[in-house]
């Protein structure tokens, strides 16, 4: 918690324009600013960035945790259901559809978000529909991956035919960014994530039991399909929103739940859900601070930073567990 606040503060302080601590104090506690420009920077850029880092970090970590538990697979993540692929297709259609099909889409920031949301929602509905019919969890995992791959293939087609400018815009989107969320959109973002987190919190016990095995869940009186449906809904809200607003951010969703498990040495989701949410938010803030390259005007792609930080964790897990599939 303390680490999280410190990181948030750091993230507010650092950037291409250095902002004195006094101004941040002034923003939160009232008072006069050393420079009125700083107020505008904090209000319009730094705060939305910090808030979206908090939202995306906790959303991705919790949805990754849910997927690892439901699929009982340590390498599952928020995107195993194909949600990011759906979002990517939506964005690809907006950014490159115009050049590929001669359609004129609304290629603005809002358009991207709406397209990504619609894309992930469509994949989500497909997965949920299938999850009602299919009983076996491994079949679901394979179907999710197949949907994702199929959707990615369509995205590749669009990329192939897209113009150079739109292609570059798309690639930049896939690199992820925390800065793109406006203050108005932040409310929608926060609402979606909080709804998803609330669902995750409500399903702590079913998650505990599903982590042991579907048969145990059934014999303890849980309705497995219904439970799974609502957990998928929560995951989709979380991962879908994060992808829509910040792009497909890799590895946070896979690595952070493992960090939480290692630190707290438990599989009790009453602890793991809040722990992953906090750790996810902190990790993403840290990634963002590193991406800003404090003191310089250059900003590194968020996804590269997240991957470079996340991959060592994943490698460590694989080496430590040896037995990856239990």
């Amino acid at each position: 918690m303390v680490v999280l606040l410190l990181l948030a503060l750091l993230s507010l302080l650092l950037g291409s324009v250095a902002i004195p601590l006094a101004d941040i104090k002034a923003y939160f506690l009232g008072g006069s600013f050393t420079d009125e420009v700083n107020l505008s920077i904090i209000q319009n850029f730094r705060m939305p960035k910090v808030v979206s880092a908090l939202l995306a970090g906790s959303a991705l970590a919790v949805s990754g945790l849910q997927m690892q538990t439901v699929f009982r697979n340590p390498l599952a993540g928020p995107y195993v259901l194909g949600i990011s692929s759906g979002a990517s297709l939506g964005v690809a259609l907006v950014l490159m559809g115009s050049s590929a099909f001669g359609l004129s889409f609304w290629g603005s920031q809002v358009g991207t978000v709406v397209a990504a949301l619609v894309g992930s929602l469509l994949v989500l509905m497909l997965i949920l529909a299938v999850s009602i019919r299919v009983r076996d969890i491994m079949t679901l995992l394979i179907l999710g991956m197949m949907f994702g791959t199929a959707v990615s293939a369509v995205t590749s087609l669009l990329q192939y035919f897209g113009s150079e400018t739109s292609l570059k815009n798309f690639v930049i989107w896939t690199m992820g960014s925390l800065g793109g969320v406006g203050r108005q959109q932040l409310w929608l973002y926060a609402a979606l994530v909080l709804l998803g987190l609330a669902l995750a919190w409500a399903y702590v016990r079913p998650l505990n039991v599903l982590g042991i095995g579907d048969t145990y869940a059934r014999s303890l009186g849980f309705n497995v399909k219904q439970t799974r449906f609502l957990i998928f809904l929560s995951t989709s809200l979380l991962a879908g929103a994060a992808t829509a607003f910040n792009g497909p951010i890799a590895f946070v969703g896979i690595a952070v739940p493992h960090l939480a498990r290692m630190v707290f040495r438990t599989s009790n989701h009453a602890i793991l859900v809040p722990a992953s949410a906090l750790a996810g938010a902190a990790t993403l803030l840290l990634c963002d601070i590193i991406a800003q390259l404090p003191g310089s005007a250059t900003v590194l792609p968020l996804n590269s930073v997240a991957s470079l930080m996340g991959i060592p964790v994943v490698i460590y897990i694989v080496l430590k567990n040896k037995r990856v599939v239990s």
Partner: protein
Amino acid sequence: MNGIVIDIKGLVSGYRNGVSSTYRYPAFNAVALRGELIALIGRNGVGKSTLLRTLARIQPSLDGNVFVKRVNFQQISGSEFAQLVSFIPSEPAHASHTTVYEFVSMARYPYHGWFEALNDNDHKLVDDAISAVGMQNFRDRFIDNLSDGERQRVMIAFAIAQDTPIIMMDEPTAFLDLPNKFEVMRLLREQAQKGKTIIISTHDLQTAFGLVDTIWLMLSDGVRVGAPEDIVLSGNLNRLMDDTPVLFDLKSGQFVYKHQTRLVACVLGGSPNIKKWTSHALRRMGYEVEFSPIDDASTYVQIQEHEGKVQWILGRDDRNPTFDSIRNLCIYIKGTALL
């Protein structure tokens, strides 16, 4: 009859595999009483797990009814049923970073709403269940780091903590060595003596025959119900061995190989134990054993004991080969048979 806990009426278990192929096991009638320890026995693939899972409502029945405490089990809600029947599947629970205590605590979930924390009574029940199976020193160990025997004891603790009148376990003694098998069965008997009805499936006939009250013998054409002894005397046990080289020998109470030609061996002299195990070895080698002299016997084995040393003499007079162990006796008999 009083004390009927489960009343099975014409239950058809099986599964549908696609539209056309369906596996149906013949309709089954039986009752399970309070305090009864029942073993469901059958060959691999006959549908033991399917029947048990159907009884535990893990998978749907194809026909018929089951009454649990006189209520049709289809009409019982999920959490109510979980307070009546505890089902432990054959696949062991695997979950990283789950301690024995956390795992057993989950057995208390059916008694609480989703946001209701476990209370002191729950924690006491969980502790008692872990102690009942002798795992109190393992309560904070991860279940992934337990041996098969320890894990199976934790599974029983889970069932005890769920505090249900009925416990069903699918293959609880599979993968266990002999001491652990007996320990698991002892724990289950202990629970039966406390009045619980316990149904286990197993293909381990020897464990089952020595230790359960009732056997549900699953043959390909239906279930035979009886005490282990009833099942033996009815000859149904050999139905289980159809198309195998093994049969159950009523006289010795052991499973023996069917042999085409039966040679007779006479075992003479020696103390009862040595006689018993010498004949055991001869039976294993395909002989029928008699303990009195018979004229047309193909082999005679005389046992002599001298100052604590035992000798086995092959043949009728003293000039025949003499051996200091059953192994050497067997090697010689085998050698002459090969000539």
